[in-house]
């Protein structure tokens, strides 16, 4: 019977989903079923290579330790690959995309605006960032990773939405001891000549947004008053019940409710589909997933310490966690729409601030609306 066969097909495709494999694009009924399943993004991308070295079985003698340290010092000594010719620096136009930075969340404290309003800001410190690599789009698409990423969209393969993106720029943060990492991981940094970094991030860019590998990135990459998107891993909240995890209403505390104050209640359907549907919301692990916080404004930048002051307390993770920051993709907060902030001609430094520009910067800069503590108390008299 027709009804039975479509149902069987649906069940099989759901089985595939439960094993988290790539969807086959043939079935059109899956979109409504799939929407019930709330996928949570907790794993690192599959293309991340093995990073940490295994512990050494035999102890290394002191002489050899000194020898290794010597070798490392000689290898990473000196300026970064100055024998290569510098790449051309692009100019900003509408629709450009440039790489972002990796920053560490160092805390939260309030700042005040000139009209007396308080804004709680999160401080994000850009620590030891360098551009590691530029991967052109064709290289990426032909590679093993690129093939895996080639998920057919239901609008068809001919609809290429992001034609202008010419590749990925990889950025790394916080140099560490090469002895901790595998040879493969250290090899990622030979192009740029920097020391192996603890954290890596990848940003899609347009042609003019490409930055040469080895360039350091600082807080001056951003402009006070602009909007950014922050990508990071949320705080772990452990195994949580259905009220905290999914926002269920629970049941009354009194009036005769028996042992069911925070429970889910009804879970299955009636006669025909007498089973629990896949994706039924139930208690489980909350937190530790990678999310985007979009449209956060940068109110203040400290160029001396490389600290960005960003709206809100909700930047993902605890103090000390690393997040990716890039220019926002929200339409209302893009460069061309920032008329009040006078940023319609793009970021101040595009694609990033280089050494000669960094020298001229003051220690600190505020968005025009922010109250500087060096100025006297706010007076609201007309």
């Amino acid at each position, binding site marked *: 019977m027709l009804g039975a066969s479509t149902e069987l097909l649906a069940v099989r495709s759901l089985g595939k989903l439960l094993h988290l494999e790539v969807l086959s694009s043939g079935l059109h009924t899956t979109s409504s079923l799939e929407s019930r399943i709330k996928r949570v993004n907790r794993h690192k991308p599959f293309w991340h290579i093995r990073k940490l070295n295994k512990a050494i079985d035999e102890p290394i003698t002191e002489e050899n330790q000194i020898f290794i340290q010597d070798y490392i010092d000689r290898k990473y000594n000196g300026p970064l690959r100055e024998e290569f010719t510098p790449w051309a620096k692009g100019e900003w136009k509408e629709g450009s995309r440039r790489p972002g930075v990796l920053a560490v969340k160092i805390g939260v404290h*309030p700042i005040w605006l000139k009209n*007396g309003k*308080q804004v709680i800001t999160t401080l994000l*410190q850009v620590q030891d960032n360098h551009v590691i690599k530029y991967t052109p789009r064709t290289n990426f698409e032909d590679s093993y990773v690129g093939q895996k990423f080639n998920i057919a969209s239901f609008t068809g393969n001919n609809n290429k939405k992001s034609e202008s993106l010419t590749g990925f720029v990889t950025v790394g943060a916080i140099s560490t001891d090469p002895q901790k990492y595998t040879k493969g991981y250290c090899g990622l940094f030979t192009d740029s000549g920097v020391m192996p970094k603890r954290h890596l991030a990848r940003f899609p860019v347009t042609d003019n947004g490409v930055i040469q590998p080895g360039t350091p990135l600082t807080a001056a990459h951003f402009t006070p008053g602009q909007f950014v998107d922050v990508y990071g891993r949320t705080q772990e909240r452990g195994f949580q019940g259905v009220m905290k995890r999914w926002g269920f209403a629970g049941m009354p505390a009194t009036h005769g409710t028996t042992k069911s104050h925070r429970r889910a209640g009804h879970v299955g359907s009636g006669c025909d589909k007498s089973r629990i549907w896949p994706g039924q919301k139930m208690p489980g692990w909350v937190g530790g997933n990678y999310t985007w916080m979009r449209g956060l404004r940068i109110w203040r930048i400290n160029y001396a*310490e490389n*600290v960005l002051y960003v709206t809100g307390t909700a930047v993902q993770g605890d103090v000390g966690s690393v997040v990716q920051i890039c220019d926002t993709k929200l339409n209302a907060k893009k460069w061309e729409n920032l008329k009040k902030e006078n940023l319609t001609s793009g970021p101040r430094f595009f694609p990033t601030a280089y050494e000669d520009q960094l020298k001229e910067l003051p220690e600190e800069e505020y968005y025009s609306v922010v109250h500087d503590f060096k100025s006297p*108390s*706010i007076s609201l008299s007309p």
Partner: protein
Amino acid sequence: MMACRLTCLAGQGLRRVCSGSVRQFASTSYLRTQQTESEEDRSVNQEQHDLSRRDFRYIFPEFLPDPKPEWRNKVRERLERKDMLQRREQIEIPEFYVGSSLAVTVSDENSPNPNKISRFVGICIDRGGTGLRAWFTLRNVVEGQGVEFMYQMYNPSIVKIEVLRLEQRLDEELYYLRDAPAEYSTVPFDMEAEILPEGSPVPVNDTVVPLNSRPWTRKWERYAMIYSGYSIENPFPTPGKVRRQMRWMAEGNQGWQLQTLKYDLMRDYRNTVPMEEQDQIWEEVGDQLESRDKQMRRVAAKRAFVRPSKRI
């Protein structure tokens, strides 16, 4: 690492910063000025100087960070202290304690005055917060209505903070004033500042406030061992409850945990910033605070100077 030498009051789960009971220490004039000394004297005086700077934790408690290790970060704390010092250059944030009478003038867009400024006078019933989030609460009774205002100490809308009467009370928090007669919370709006002579210790006002009859905002009979600033006429709500209440108090049944708190040295340690780190902080900000205090003293002295009247 040396733990804080002060002991927490039992059951004082209310306050995170370790604070002892009422202590005798001088007002800001205790801040000693630096003088030229020989090297030997200098090391001795340096120690003494450091010790006197340790009193800054009472005068400027918001400069010490929140001891919770998950939230601590040296760079952020340094930037915050810098902002705080810059703000202190603009207005005088005076030394005050819970129990002092303050007058705070703020820029308020809803003020009826044409210059959009409001002034509130009150007794400080609590203060807290660390860094730029430091706050204090003033209480007063205005036209028979109890009013409390919580101010953020580093909010740039604050135009002026005056200490009308610098004094301490028997407790670190005075929330029981809400259940006390209005006269104990009233501070007249036209009160003039009482200036203490230099170098004098901060006076302790040991008034014991008689609480009103029930209902109360909190069960003050249970805190009678912790707060010494109030007295209850009839500790038991009803005659029938006497025996149950007495049994409850006799068993020390203010929650079983509170009994062990006074023996928990690790809890004390966790809730304080180590002395070495405190010394580093005062080293960083001490000079600027002292010079600012000197500046303010000069300004206050000029104001207080009374011109001699013409002799006929």
